[in-house]
Every structure is written in C-alpha cells, then in structure tokens.
C-alpha cells in the first residue's frame, strides 16, 4: 500500500512538473530577422539604377568629370567602373556580390584627389539616392559604409 502511495506521489510530481511552465525561460516568440541594407535598397536592379544616375551626375559635374573622362569615353572602362561601383555597394550592404577591383588606396594613388573633389563625389551620390527617394536611414547606412574610404581616396 505504501509502495503504491509513493509511486502515485511520484507520478503526480512528474506530471505536475512536466506541465509546469518554466517562467525563467524566455517566451518563444517568432523573431523576424532585420533585412539587410541590400534588400532594403531594393536589390541589384535598384543599386544598378542608382549607380547609373550617380555616373551621369559625376560626368555632368565640372568639379570632377575630368577624372572620369577616360572611363566615359571608353565603353569597356565605363562598364568596369560601373560593375566595380555596383559590386562595392552590393557587397558592402550585405548583397551576393564580391568586389574584385583594386583597394581604394591602390586605385587612387597618384591621382592627388582633394577633399573638395571627394565632397563633390559624395554630393553626386546623395543626389542620385534622393532622385530615387531612398529613405534617410538607408541613405545614412550606405554613406556610413562608403565614408570610411575617404582616407584611402584623398591625398594620395
């Protein structure tokens, strides 16, 4: 009789504890992963459109267009430049691209680019992003990725 009582108590304990909700465990709520900047920008097509507008703005900008004259005049170079820009934005924003061009330092050494020219380039990019109504957060996130390149681009 005593054995049956102990077995019964054990069974009740096991059942009770197995049904008890553990308050210490965090609730299992489904979490939505934050989409990457690449996705928020609209993917490769959108980045390509912004890049084309950026290139057109740069070519129209008398402060810096002389730097790009060779690339604009030669469709092959233009294609390389465009692909490198798209790859850089795509890879930097978490997209499925890999930047295969030179490092910023190697690409700009010998060009003696000034802060004014770098500022003009950034303004052309911002104008392009504004034309496509890219939200402020995405714009700032993208500029935060490209901004640290300034020391490698200017003054070499």
């Amino acid at each position, binding site marked *: 009789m005593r054995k049956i009582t102990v077995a019964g108590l054990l069974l009740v304990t096991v059942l009770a504890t197995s049904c008890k909700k553990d308050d210490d465990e965090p609730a299992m709520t489904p979490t939505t992963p934050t989409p990457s900047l690449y996705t928020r920008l609209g993917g490769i097509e959108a980045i390509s459109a912004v890049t*084309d507008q950026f*290139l*057109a703005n740069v*070519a129209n900008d008398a402060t810096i267009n002389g730097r790009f004259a060779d690339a604009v005049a030669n469709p092959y170079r233009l294609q390389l430049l465009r692909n490198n820009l*798209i790859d850089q934005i*795509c890879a930097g924003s978490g997209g499925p691209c890999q930047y295969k061009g030179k490092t910023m330092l190697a690409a700009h050494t010998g060009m003696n680019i000034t802060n004014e020219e770098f500022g003009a380039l950034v303004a052309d990019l911002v104008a392009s992003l504004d034309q496509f109504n890219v939200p402020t957060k995405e714009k700032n996130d993208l500029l935060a990725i490209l901004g640290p390149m300034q020391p490698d681009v200017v003054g070499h």
Partner: protein
Amino acid sequence: MKKKNRLKKWGKALLILTGITFVSLFTWANWNAPTITERLPKIEMSSFDLSNVNDAATYNKVNTAMQETAGVTACSVNPVSQMATVTFHPTETSKEELQSDISRVAGTAVDFKHFETKAGCPMKATSEFFGKLKQSLCLRD
C-alpha cells in the same frame, strides 16, 4: 617531296596548337559563371553640350524627355556646366538617336561634349583585350 612533307608536318602542328589555344581560352572564359553584376545589361554613356540652351525650362524638358526615352537608364542635366549626360542600353538606342532627340527638344543643334582628362582615371584598361575576349567566348548565363 621532303619539303612538302615538312610543310605538311608544320601545318599539322600549327593546326593542333591553334586548337589547343582555342580550347584553353574557351575553358578559361567559361570556367566561372558571370557574376550577378556581369549579367546586368551593358550601358554606354554620352554627354551633350547644351551651351546654346539658356533657359531652365528647356533643361527640364530635355531631362524629362530623356527619362522617358526607351533604353535610357539615367539622365542628368546641369545648367551650370551646360551639359546633359545620358546612360543608355546600346541595344535599345544609340548616342546619335539621343543627340537627335535632345536637339529636337532643345530646339537647337546639340553637339557631343568631350571633357578634358584630369590626372588619370581609377579604371585601368590594360586587360581590355582579354576582358573583351572573355566576354565574347563566355556562353554561360
């Protein structure tokens, strides 16, 4: 007879060498699939001199007309530098067609704009020959 045989031998060797070279280049060009960026349609760019255009309204008209032109991917007009620059898909339109369209909208003959090179360009074209060869031999999507 000996000379003929020697020529035949050399011809055969040259043919084999050409074949090996072609197969090697073809394999190299198709080794890696083009990246997502390389698969995008190609663009070209042209700049037009708008120094004959004086009013802002015409600049806006040129910009609107270009944005609506089939094959144009981007357009930028700048009254300060008196230029319009257009990027476009060469399979859909040409710089001559764009020049004609801009001239019509601007109401005056518009020339191409060439700006002077200023201390280099970050894109070196040393591998242009091999790059173009690779593009033409690559059959992968």
